[in-house]
């Protein structure tokens, strides 16, 4: 399935979307950019830390709410679109449901296990409990309410056309996000033969019954790193952070890298992927 078809079919307006769930690596930027091109609106984004992708979707006006632990640029700092949206309502106001990394993981595990809440000691004494309606104090513990995404979009190294998936390197909260979500859209570096994956069933990331689409999208995580394939493009993140300081700068960046680009293979014509490639995967 093409990226455009997968987003068209499985990420309608108003969806709750878990994306960028492996923290810094494997961020499905190509999928996020397609959501922007198709003009998605009123999304709720769910994730742990988000290295620039949430900021871009917020700046493009796609987002109504974020449920996350951290939104910015990991090597550069503040998220400028995130700031404009929360401070000034530009391009639109958004709602923020603050979490910590641990509590967003627990919220997704709760949904994965079909449990309304999971109790924890983390966030005791933090004002995050005061401002997030999905968190409450009960019997000396914090109750973390389940967060159930409609769809999780996950970039991985390898998949087959039946939705069997392998990812490696640190996994962040990918597993709980996939199990919690109603459905999973996979974007992958390599589309491989099924027998090569099923030789190691312990390494299959999700039950294939969750996976509704597999999009073969090499380089689909750029500028984030992919273990065994690409290093992180630090300069690209730095350029985005500098450009997005102003709304005009962000709009120009978005036009150049997203709106005027029909798809990921065209985008990659403007990136030196070879310089980022890891020699021996």
């Amino acid at each position, binding site marked *: 399935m093409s990226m455009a078809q997968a987003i068209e079919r499985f990420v309608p307006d108003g969806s709750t979307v878990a994306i960028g769930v492996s923290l*810094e690596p494997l961020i499905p930027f190509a999928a996020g950019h397609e959501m922007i091109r198709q003009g998605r609106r009123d999304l709720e984004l769910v994730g742990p830390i988000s290295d620039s992708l949430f900021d871009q979707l917020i700046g493009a006006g796609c987002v109504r709410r974020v449920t996350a632990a951290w939104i910015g640029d990991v090597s550069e700092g503040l998220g400028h679109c995130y700031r404009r949206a929360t401070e000034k309502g530009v391009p639109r106001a958004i709602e923020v449901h603050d979490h910590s990394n641990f509590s967003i993981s627990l919220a997704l595990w709760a949904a994965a296990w079909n449990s309304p809440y999971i109790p924890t000691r983390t966030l005791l004494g933090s004002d995050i409990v005061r401002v997030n309606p999905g968190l409450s104090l009960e019997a000396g513990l914090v109750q973390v309410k389940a967060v159930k995404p409609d769809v999780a979009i996950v970039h991985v190294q390898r998949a087959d056309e039946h939705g069997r998936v392998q990812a490696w390197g640190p996994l962040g*909260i990918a597993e709980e996000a996939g199990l919690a979500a109603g459905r999973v859209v996979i974007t992958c570096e390599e589309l491989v033969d099924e027998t090569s994956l099923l030789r190691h069933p312990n390494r299959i990331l999700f039950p294939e019954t969750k996976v509704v689409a597999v999009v073969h999208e090499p380089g689909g995580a750029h500028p984030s790193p992919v273990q065994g394939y690409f290093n992180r493009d630090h300069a690209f993140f730095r350029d985005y952070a500098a450009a997005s300081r102003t709304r005009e700068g962000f709009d120009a960046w978005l036009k150049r890298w997203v709106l005027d680009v029909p798809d990921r293979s065209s985008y990659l014509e403007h990136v030196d992927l070879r310089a980022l490639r*890891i020699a021996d995967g």
Partner: protein
Amino acid sequence: MAEAYTAQEMMVAVASREIRDGDLVFVGMRLPILAYAVAHDSHAPGARGLFEVGLMRDQPASSFLGTMGDPPNVVGALWATRMSNAMALLAQGSVDLGFIGGAEVDRFGNLNTSYIGEPARPTVKLPGSGGGADIAILSRRWVTLMSHERRRLVERVSFVTSPGHGDGSAGWRKRNGLLGGGPAAIITTLAVLRFPEGGGEAYLASVHPGSTVDEVRANTGWDLKLGSDLTETLPPTEAELAAIRRFDPDGFWTRS
């Protein structure tokens, strides 16, 4: 005359000395990644690093890291896993030391990385907790690093993202169910502030060479108490500087 060094290099050297040999260290981002490498290289070869992205290591990565999730941090790792497994060790009280970056800290060591002003319509929206609140609540002791400015070291933070010693009263953390011992030090561009054992209010423990008590107090947003054994911070040693420059060869974190 000692070799010239930057304020960031000073902070990394001081942070590295907080790591004890054999510690399990929740490393975090930016300068602490370098601090772990420097400590491992010198006095703490047995320290392990735990990264919330889902990694454990017993040696620093062999090349530069822009983030903890960069591929070189996975090569040679002891364990690559899901975040909730790393958090399990934190929740069990097995993490000896954590590092947290802060935008704003108060006299009781509470950190704000969420909102300046009203959360509903903030004047500044900061990125948020990340794993900061988890480290603050669950690790045995933790340290924060920040630029020493009056707007950052404030009397009380308006929003507690990562709790330190709360209202500063004795036993605040235990009473509220927090697991670990809380903040041990605030390492700044000018000085090191420490907390009494068991909690309470930060005091000035040492002043970096080139700064003065007056300068530190003028840049602190409360009436900072002086420690009884106030000293000058030991500058980075040659070995520490060499290690810092090996792990940050282009000065991405320490010279920009």
